[in-house]
């Protein structure tokens, strides 16, 4: 008997959102699978054939590529998980814990490529870490001939992925902790005589893990198929599978598109198999864990673990931040040769030479990021409002939003490009924004859904009873009260857009250069001082967005204690 709001135009938003998503991904997957089996009429492929698969499986680079891919994909995910869980379990409620949580968001904002570029210089045999001890301590008059980056097994890539993904997992973990009443669980366990680390592992981890699952799968899928970081730090001959596929798609020999399509499909199968394997591992570990919990071991004070895991986490954070600072220093360097630990002198020459081009690229990056993040925000708010005004439970179908995080980019971008060409959108700004939206929107949703759903519904009821309609409630109550998470989610979306490499190349048809595509292209061999300029800008832009997202609400609500 109470009037139901049907939502009107809002009802279209979830459908529109899913359509925007599913169409390119589904078309992209099909458009990749067909050529994998020989069907691509524009290149003369009309008969189904397994030739591309035969060629793929016979390729000399494939075994090496698979091994490097598996090592870096699983290795980095395992390290990131271990450091995240180890640190949270061993060091919760310590000083280090509070400091670390502050550093997370900034590191999260930094694009993968920038982290990789920074690490490449730190870790190289002629890089900063060895320079610091050479030749006085190490005895190296010349850089040693050891592959510390671009090594055959992808170990440098593994480390870089772990550096980049650990902050993401830890931040996800912190978000999840708020929902499981961790302090009460810990207090209960501690009062039963459990040491802090064991108490956390036995009472908190089982409760938060389900919420970490999706982020972990996303990390695993990403690490197995990353391109930009692999181009910078990964092995070269043979490269990882994703890079191999990427090269086939770009080879002048168009017949290799078929092999590339087969490789992209293999990449997808690999990711699916990896996730299944991980799930099986979870089940096995959970079974062992139950037995461990039931055994009742109390554990000790965990002091050694606390030190060890804190050191591991800060090591990871230091590598990430240190690499960026060093690249910023490179952009100001005059000459900086082995074995000098510092540049011979500083100069603004490089910036003066690059400023015009960097500005152009920066504007493109900014416009693209704002468009994609803004659009994503609109759609996400539309979906959430539709859900709340209808009093619906979170729609099941919305998990489809996370699809782009789990499906490897190379597995569908080629097919999606074919779709864009057919639609005449190839190389247009619209196609570019759309391609970024695929990856921006899930993160915006991830960042905003929880705070939006958690807002005390009685505020809305009060406002309604005071005479405010749905629009009034949205603009005058919800949006201002949730200004902080809204801006934070937008900054997350912006940072995700800035970091996109492959979608920019595919959808932009090479016509749009962003700070990331420039930085990756330059990283391969260009003047490191110029690379420094782009790596710095690439990191600075999203950091600035995060700073604004924090500062604006703080300033706006400087006289509102409850919102600080």
């Amino acid at each position, binding site marked *: 008997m109470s009037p139901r709001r049907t939502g009107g135009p809002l009802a279209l938003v979830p459908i529109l959102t899913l359509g925007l998503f599913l169409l390119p991904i589904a078309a992209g997957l099909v458009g990749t699978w067909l050529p994998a089996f020989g069907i691509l009429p*524009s290149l003369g492929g009309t008969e189904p054939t397994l030739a591309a698969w035969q060629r793929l499986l016979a390729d000399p*680079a494939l075994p090496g590529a698979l091994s490097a891919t598996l090592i870096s994909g699983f290795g980095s995910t395992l390290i990131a998980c271990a450091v995240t869980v180890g640190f949270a379990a061993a060091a919760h409620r310590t000083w280090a814990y509070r400091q670390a949580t502050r550093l997370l968001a900034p590191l999260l904002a930094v694009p993968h490529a920038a982290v990789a570029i920074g690490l490449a210089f730190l870790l190289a045999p*002629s890089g900063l870490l060895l320079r610091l001890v050479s030749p006085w301590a190490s005895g190296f008059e010349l*850089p040693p*001939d050891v*592959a510390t980056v671009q090594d055959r097994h992808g170990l440098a890539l593994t480390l870089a992925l772990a550096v980049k993904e650990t902050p993401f997992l830890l931040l996800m973990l912190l978000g999840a902790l708020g929902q499981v009443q961790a302090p009460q669980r810990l207090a209960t366990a501690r009062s039963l005589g459990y040491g802090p680390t064991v108490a956390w592992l036995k009472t908190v981890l089982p409760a938060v893990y389900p919420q970490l699952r999706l982020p972990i799968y996303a990390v695993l899928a990403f690490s197995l198929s990353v391109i930009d970081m692999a181009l910078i730090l990964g092995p070269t*001959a043979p490269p990882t599978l994703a890079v191999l596929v990427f090269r086939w798609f*770009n080879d002048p020999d*168009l017949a290799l598109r078929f092999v590339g399509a087969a490789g992209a499909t293999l990449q997808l199968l690999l990711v699916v198999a990896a996730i299944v394997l991980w799930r099986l591992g979870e089940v096995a570990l959970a079974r062992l864990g139950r037995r461990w919990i039931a055994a009742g071991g109390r554990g000790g004070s965990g002091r050694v673990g606390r030190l060890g895991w804190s050191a591991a986490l800060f090591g990871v954070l230091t590598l990430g931040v240190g690499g960026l600072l060093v690249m910023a220093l490179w952009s100001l360097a005059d000459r900086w040769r082995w074995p000098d630990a510092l540049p011979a002198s500083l100069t603004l020459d490089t910036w003066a030479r690059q400023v015009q081009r960097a500005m152009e690229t920066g504007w493109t990056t900014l416009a693209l990021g704002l468009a994609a993040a803004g659009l994503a925000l609109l759609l996400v708010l539309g979906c959430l409002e539709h859900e709340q005004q209808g009093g619906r439970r979170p729609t099941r179908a919305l998990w489809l939003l996370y699809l782009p995080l789990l499906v490897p980019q190379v597995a569908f971008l080629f097919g999606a490009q074919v779709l864009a060409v057919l639609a005449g959108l190839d190389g247009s700004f619209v196609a570019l924004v759309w391609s970024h939206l695929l990856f921006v929107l899930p993160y915006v949703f991830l960042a905003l859904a929880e705070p939006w759903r958690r807002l005390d519904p009685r505020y809305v009821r009060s406002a309604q009873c005071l005479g405010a309609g749905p629009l009034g409630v949205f603009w005058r109550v919800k949006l201002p009260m949730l200004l902080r998470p809204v801006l934070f989610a937008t900054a997350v979306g912006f940072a995700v857009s800035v970091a996109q490499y492959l979608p920019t190349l595919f959808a932009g048809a090479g016509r749009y250069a962003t700070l990331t595509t420039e930085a990756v292209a330059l990283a391969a*061999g260009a003047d490191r001082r110029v690379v420094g300029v782009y790596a710095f800008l690439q990191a600075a832009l999203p950091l600035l967005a995060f700073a604004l997202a924090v500062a604006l609400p703080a300033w706006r609500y400087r006289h509102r204690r409850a919102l600080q």
Partner: protein
Amino acid sequence: MPLCRFAALMACLAAAASAAGAVRAAERPVPSFEAAVAAAEGQTVYFNAWGGDERINAYIAWVGERVEALHGLELVHVKLSDTADAVSRVLAETAAGNGDAGSIDLVWINGENFAAMKEADLLFGPFVEALPNFALVDTEDKPTTLVDFTVPTDGLEAPWGMAKFNFIYDSARIADPPGDAQELLAWAEVNPGRFAYPAPPDFMGSTFLKQILIELAADADLLQRPLESPAQLAEVAAPLWRYLDALHPHLWRDGQIFPTSGPAQRRLLDDGELDVALSFHPGEASSLIAAGQLPESARTFVFPEGTIGNTHFVAIPINASAPEAAMVVANFLMSPEAQAEKQNPEIWGDDTVLDLDKLSAEDRKRFADIPRGPATLSPEELGPVLLEPHPSWMTALEDEWRRRYLR
């Protein structure tokens, strides 16, 4: 099956070309240069050019400013990591029926990419004869301005610069650089881990293979003709593989890892990880010293018996949106002003295609004023030019290299 790749590429291009025949049937006429200049004003030229070198990018940006000032057209540098991307894009566009609104107006090209585009009728022209500055090109003493990797240019690409393979080395570390392939091998054995070459199909790495092959092949003249069969490759290239098998254990990272590109290898030289890098521009070492990217002690050496030389060009795709403006840009690139600027080692250090004797005294002075730089060899020291093999050899060599060493 080393022949496969080139053959397959050709077959694909041919198939696509016939599929897109309808588009090409409407031949696009080449305007007179005056008409081109008139039409060019206000047009935008998307210049697809390899973007891996900052100094070259800066030079192209300078060209953009000049043509805008002179002709009121806009030049956009689309930075490619591989010119092959542009070839496949033109192909995809024409196959989709896009006959005159393509996304590429001008492309920096030579060798296999030119051969492929020419074979598939993907090039606009012949337009080169219509460009007034082409008369200044030294087609006599620089025959590679007319024959690109054994393929006649037929006026479909305008010469832009001269490249000659050379080695950059650190004279502080090497007193007496090697004088031929065998000496290089001997030097590498004594100095393990200090030499490398980029992994083919990077063009610098591929050129290294061709240079060694020309030196070691029993009959190098065979390379000027298309590759006939896999058996021929196996026979002719056998000394090359023996040489590489001997060399690789002494390379940087034991020959297990290769630098990704020429610039990457030059950076490794500057980092002190290598003593030798490869280059295609005789002025490059001086240029990089001036730019603070190589030590003052960097110098150049070549093999006195000769090193591979070629010309690089610009071409206009058949479906260019602004072929008139592209012609105007191509003409400017051949102008004494642009060529002299390019040859300056402080800018780029790429040798001119022009015949200085054909220039006015004023323009000759532009070239005379260019500082040669400390690391640049004199024309006499630079040695004879060896001609590029036919493109079919290169793709076959790349495939076979991949099969042998990429695992």
